[in-house]
């Protein structure tokens, strides 16, 4: 039963993360075109970071760093009587009431908290990917159109919202569809974050002997993983079909736009 539930966990993660990542990406892409250097450079660094560092480093780093950051702030705020560093030797020590979530909280709170940390990590990484795609899409909107906008006396803000924003989506769509598939294919990494996802259950249920039970069947892990492969193949197949239709829908009546896009690769 838990095995089937874990499929829902994966799908929930994807559905929650995708809009969040879009938001992050949109903000980053917009900021990277800003005239203000203080906004432009952090956004550019954020967008560029996923090119240089493997995404799984972020998946491992962000939840742990966030968790410690939150606990550290609560530690400083709630137990000001305790002095001394929180890193003592090889331990990270905060007082009891600063624990996140509280050790007295029920199990589902712990699970939910872990899940939210994972969502944040995914949103940050895929926000950077989305920022890449959207920044490229914004650059692909013909410059003459933006200039025409300002020639009509539009402010920068108006040019952004009325000319750039509506037009960039058609350029962004191929990249975004790729990103969606990429996000789906990154979900098994949830396992590394200690969330009991499908990989976890496939290992647990498949093996002949686990810490908790001894199953009456021999080692079936290979079959469980085969099932996972088929599941992912199916999900990516469905997504491809959907995006194909979306692409056709959007490009209807925009023959010129599509052609220039294909020529540009």
């Amino acid at each position, binding site marked *: 039963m838990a095995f089937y539930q874990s499929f829902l966990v994966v799908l929930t993660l994807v559905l929650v993360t995708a809009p969040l990542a879009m938001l992050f990406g949109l903000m980053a892409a917009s900021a990277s075109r800003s005239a203000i250097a203080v906004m432009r450079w952090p956004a550019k660094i954020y967008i560029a970071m996923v090119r240089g560092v493997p995404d799984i*480093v972020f998946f*491992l*780093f962000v939840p742990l760093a966030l968790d410690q950051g939150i606990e550290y702030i609560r530690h400083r705020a709630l137990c000001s009587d305790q002095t001394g560093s929180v890193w003592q030797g*090889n331990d990270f020590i905060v007082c009891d009431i600063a624990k996140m979530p509280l050790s007295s909280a029920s199990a589902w709170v712990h699970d939910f908290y872990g899940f939210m940390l994972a969502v944040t990590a995914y949103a940050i990484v895929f926000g950077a990917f989305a920022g*890449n795609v959207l920044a490229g899409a914004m650059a692909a909107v013909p410059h003459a159109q933006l200039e025409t906008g300002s020639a009509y006396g539009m402010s920068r803000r108006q040019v952004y919202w009325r000319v750039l924003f509506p037009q960039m989506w058609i350029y962004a769509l191929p990249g975004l569809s790729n*990103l969606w598939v990429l996000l789906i294919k990154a979900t098994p990494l949830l396992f*590394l974050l200690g969330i009991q996802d499908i990989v976890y259950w496939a290992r647990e249920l498949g093996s002949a002997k686990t810490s908790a039970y001894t199953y009456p069947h021999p080692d079936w*892990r*290979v079959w469980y993983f085969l099932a996972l492969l088929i599941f992912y193949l199916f999900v990516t197949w469905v997504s491809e079909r959907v995006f194909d239709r979306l692409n056709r829908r959007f490009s209807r009546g925009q023959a010129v736009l599509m052609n220039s896009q294909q020529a540009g690769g």
Partner: protein
Amino acid sequence: MSSCLNAFQDYGLRAIGYGERLLPKADITICEQFALIGSGLIWNIFFGILAIMIGYWFALALAVGKMSGSGWLRGFSVGFIYLFRGTPLFIQFFFAYELFVLLPKVGITLDLWVVTIDLESRWLTRAWLGALLVLILNTSAYSAEIFYGALRSTPRGEVEAAMAYGMSGWQRFWRVVWPNMMRLAWPSYTNEAIFLFHATTLVFFSGFPAWRQSGDALYYANYFADKTFNPFIAYPIIAFYFIIFTLMIIGLFGWINWRLNRHLPQHAKQRLSIRLNLIR
């Protein structure tokens, strides 16, 4: 400073089994972290280079196969590419490992006149061969898709010109189609190489066990983060290493790109840019 040198002597080659046997447990210094994570990088480079070099030829064959008129050859190529691109690499590692474990333990002795090699099937369950195999197949599928796209946009006129010169099919491919295809595919292929290099960090987190605690860079970074409970040192170190190597890949591939486009007039040259349209 001398203790730092010591750390590099002890742990610099730890990932391939030389040096100190035990990993540092208490009082971990920054030098030790740098040394050990750096030594883990040997594995990432090993996987990355071999997978790219072997996968390249396989990808070429697959791309040509997908283009070919023969039904079963095209079917195989399309199916192979679809299977490996449609599923997560992480699950592929797990599946391959479990599959390799189930294989019967046999040994084959290859007699190659000069040397004899004992091939054993249990090597497949080790990361250096099993994971390498998965990485090769995986990158072949992604690269084949890139090459296939380039193959389709090879200028028809040039092939016809080659035919007019009386070149044979083989000559036509290697002298006209292949260089053109490489030129067109190179920017995307650079991307693929970078992301493959990043994907090598997954190896020791999937089923493949790190034998005698000799793992890759991320394996050690994770080890340190677990031990010191402080992610703010180990992970930035590995990020630093990876950024440097990514820049090196971009430099190398950029140079090749320049060589491939040398003959073209300035305005027609394709600039190497990291586009995210065709990433893994």
